[in-house]
């Protein structure tokens, strides 16, 4: 499965980057491809390349604030959760994504 997504937290200093790391580890352990963009105080990092948006099966938004560029996912299935969920139970979240895709 090809997963793309964005992580962004309230202060944009720490939770964003922890959420990203947790999601990547959990997705890879479950055998998926994943690319997570971060939107924090330092701006956008690891912006999702267009070709990955095209090939994505699902978009995960682990966000506590409004993010920019949401229109890029107009025709995609989106799962939105707070960063807390991505940090606390990343494996469960990936399972939920798998279920959403198979439906």
């Amino acid at each position, binding site marked *: 499965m090809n997963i793309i997504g964005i992580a962004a937290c309230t202060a944009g200093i720490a939770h964003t980057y922890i959420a990203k790391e947790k999601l990547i580890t959990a997705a890879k352990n479950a055998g998926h491809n994943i690319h997570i963009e971060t939107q924090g105080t*330092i701006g956008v990092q690891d912006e999702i390349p267009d070709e990955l948006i095209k090939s994505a099966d699902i978009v995960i938004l682990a966000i506590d604030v409004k993010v920019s560029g949401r229109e890029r996912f107009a025709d995609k299935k989106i799962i939105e959760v707070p960063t807390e969920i991505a940090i606390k139970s990343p494996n469960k979240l990936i399972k939920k994504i798998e279920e959403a895709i198979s439906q």
Partner: protein
Amino acid sequence: MSLNKILDEQVITTNINAKDKNEALLILSEKLLNAGYINDISSFLEDIYYRESLGATGIGNYIAIPHGQSDSVLRNGIAIGKFNQEIQWETLDGKGVKLIFLFSVSANHDGANEHLMLLAQLAGKLGNDDVIDRLLKANDSQEIKQIFTSC
């Protein structure tokens, strides 16, 4: 960019005794003050507690990452404290915390600042369970620094 640039042994402390969250934050803030990262403890802590009021900074696995942007910050940096007791904290897994990463971030930053990027990089490593296991076993500040620069 190397994490060595923001990992400052002057503000990495192990073997600390604190009875609660307030005392723990105060001890680490004093370190930041003495090392010239902040110029006022009470206004710094006020901004830290403001961020605390927005949501849990205990990310689970005995780790807390209190942070906030404050006018009292002179230099962006991070104080790391390893405590002998489990300290009560608002955490995602309901456990207390033993390792506290207190971020000092200036309120007047100019966007893509190198130190902020390094802090982000360091925060990302806290999302790695192996790193956390090693940090929880570390005995001194040098060892903590090494874990971050070798992973």
